[in-house]
């Protein structure tokens, strides 16, 4: 069987979490069909990306030591098709791309990039920034990413992971165009299964009885919910460390609580930014069409929807924030109560352990020995005697 690697490098906010979750949960079944998704944990390929790109990430990077080389070694040893997938690979520099491709050995490498129109990606990326501690306003975010110099960290990162022609140039320039697969996300309102069918076709998963239950997704937030979260960030980002922010704010507040506001207005682009995004998308699709890549879907999908009603998250009225704010308080109280229960249980376990220890020590001979030791420890000579005794005892036992 020929060795093949499907290297999925982005983009963020294109259904990648769902794809990776399905691949992770179905590893055994995939292996039976000669497809390797080498991951001992859900975020294994994220760690490999951090390692490849020397990216510290709020402390998680310490779990990434050697992760890329291990992943590449597994892929090199596999006899069939291997899949590597994480969206932050999109940010790799040409040097890192070369290292990554070189380390995959002589397998036939196929590059996969899933892409969505900028009209939906820009608001989604702002939300993602807000979910990662940022309190930049939406208008400032739009200004930042429209700055041609890309001076800011946000602008630099945004284009590194969203500028489709550039990503494909960086990752795909050494590959024949037929081995570069551009999966476009279907337009809003399309059949919900269409994106998965496109992934299935690209990754060769079509005939497999995969468990497609959605266990892990990266849900989006409505306008007032995102506005609230941004306001919370203004207060807490400087005083909540990343390891606490992740479970308390991103998970409990954003993913488990605020994302339930499905009736809230969805975030879009203001009219001038909408026109700019569509113009830019048109110029991209023209270039992409010339490059001859294998497009799964249609390049027209990348143009984005027509302008709709714009709800500005920077001017959300206080009464619109009230309901999500109360939801947030109640979610945090429930989480606080849960953590108190955990703390209580741990105290109880500790108390029981101490009681058992004291019970074991409550013998007259222990009390006498303890008295002797405490007396000896009060003088240098006594300490020397004790040390000599302990050494001798250690030797006898040894």
């Amino acid at each position: 069987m020929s060795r093949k690697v499907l290297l999925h490098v982005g983009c963020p906010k294109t259904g990648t979490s769902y794809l990776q979750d399905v691949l992770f949960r179905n590893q055994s079944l995939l292996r039976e069909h000669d497809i390797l998704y080498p991951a001992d944990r859900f975020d294994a390929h994220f760690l490999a990306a951090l390692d490849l790109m020397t990216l510290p990430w709020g402390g998680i990077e310490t779990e990434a030591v050697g992760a890329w080389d291990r992943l590449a070694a597994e892929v090199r040893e596999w006899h069939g098709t291997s899949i590597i997938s994480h969206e932050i690979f999109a940010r790799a520099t040409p040097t890192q791309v070369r290292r990554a491709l070189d380390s995959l050995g002589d397998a036939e490498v196929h590059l996969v990039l899933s892409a969505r129109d900028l009209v939906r990606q820009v608001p989604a990326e702002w939300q993602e920034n807000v979910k990662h501690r940022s309190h930049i306003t939406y208008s400032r975010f739009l200004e930042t990413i429209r700055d041609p110099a890309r001076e800011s960290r946000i602008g630099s990162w945004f284009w590194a992971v969203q500028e489709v022609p550039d990503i494909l140039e960086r990752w795909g320039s050494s590959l024949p165009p037929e081995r570069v697969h551009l999966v476009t996300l279907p337009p809003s309102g399309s059949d919900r299964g269409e994106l998965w069918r496109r992934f299935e076709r690209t990754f060769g998963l079509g005939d497999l009885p995969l468990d497609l239950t959605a266990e892990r997704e990266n849900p989006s937030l409505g306008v007032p919910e995102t506005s609230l979260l941004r306001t919370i960030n203004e207060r807490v980002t400087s005083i909540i460390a990343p390891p606490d922010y992740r479970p308390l704010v991103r998970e409990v507040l954003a993913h488990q609580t605020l994302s339930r506001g499905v009736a809230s207005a969805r975030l879009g682009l203001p009219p001038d930014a909408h026109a700019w995004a569509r113009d830019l998308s048109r110029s991209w699709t023209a270039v992409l069409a010339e490059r001859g890549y294998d497009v799964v879907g249609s390049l027209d999908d990348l143009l984005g929807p027509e302008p709709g009603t714009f709800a500005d998250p920077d001017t959300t009225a206080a009464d619109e924030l009230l309901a999500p704010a109360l939801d947030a308080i109640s979610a945090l109280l429930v989480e606080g109560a849960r953590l108190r229960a955990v703390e209580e249980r741990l105290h109880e376990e500790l108390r029981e352990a101490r009681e058992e220890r004291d019970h074991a020590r409550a013998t007259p001979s222990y009390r006498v020995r303890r008295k002797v030791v405490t007396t000896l420890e009060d003088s240098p000579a006594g300490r020397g005697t004790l040390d000599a005794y302990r050494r001798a005892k250690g030797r006898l036992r040894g």
Partner: protein
Amino acid sequence: MTGDSSGSAASWVEHLRHGGTTPWLAWADRTTPVAAPTLPGAQQLELLRRINLARGSAVPDPALADRVLATTAAGRGKADLPLVGLPRSGFGPAPVDPATVGAHELLRVASVLVADDLVALGADPVCTTWARPWRRRFRLVGDPVLATGLREHLRALGRPEGGPRPHVVALGAPLDELLARTWTQRCFEHGSKPWAEWLRFWRERDQLPARVDLAESVARWHPRRPLVRVVTDLDRLPRELGVRSLPSSLARVPGADQAELARRVAAVVGLRVPAAERPALMRTLQRRIPDSGVAPVGVPDRERDWVASSAARMTRHLTRAGYPVVGDLADLAPRSAPATVTGADDEQVLDLAIRMVVDPAWRTERQVGQ
């Protein structure tokens, strides 16, 4: 520029590889027939040029040059920047004149070079000897710079920390200095936020970091009150540890540039070696990092009121706890004059990093334990 300019860029890279220092915009050699490879970013190229400048008339070192050019910039910053004047696709970051790339960006590459050198060097062996049975048992808390140095020094003398019923010795200092030393030591352990952000984090919480809060640090060991010493007079510290004297170098605090470079290096080392190996490597760096004479970080004016009130609160807690004091708790009040320079600037840190890349003395000098 067209195809000529690509060849020109390639010849400029060759020029840099062989020790050249001509800036890109002054590079006029379009005659050398060199194939245009994938160019490194402007960050790597400018750093190499600065390294060549620092190397002066030394024999060119193409191996070092290739290493610099192949090194990835750490962290979330700019992508590899293309050179201004070269043909481009119209996508990707805007081209730049490498000479205008800021020290902050160059440091992202330089810190990786230093980190890789450190990992290649490995941790210094730790000097130990057999534990003296008659030693005074102690447990050190407080000032982390001094405590780290003391632990190593005393272990080498056969007086390791710990043991049954130890005296808990809390090393005090004016709170502003204690904060600066704690952040500095964090940089030489597992890294930290930048100094200003770190201070703001604690000020906005109105809390003190665990190692700075002496009352909490002592209480964590549950000692009996007579077994505690809060030491603010360092001249009397040796007696509390059961030794006649201690070297004054133990209290030396690394400069702001050293700490900032260590902070950046620690983040990269965290990606290179298992977590358990990082402290020893960073301690090795702390011992070997060249001194540049830059002062340690200082508390900025805007934080001074909070530092003063925190010091007063800590003093109250220690007084109420009734722990024996060697010195005077009044010495915990901040005393440094308001700092005009509160941290190192990126140029100073870059100079230090380049010095460490160029001059291997910090790696080749033999050091053992302390």
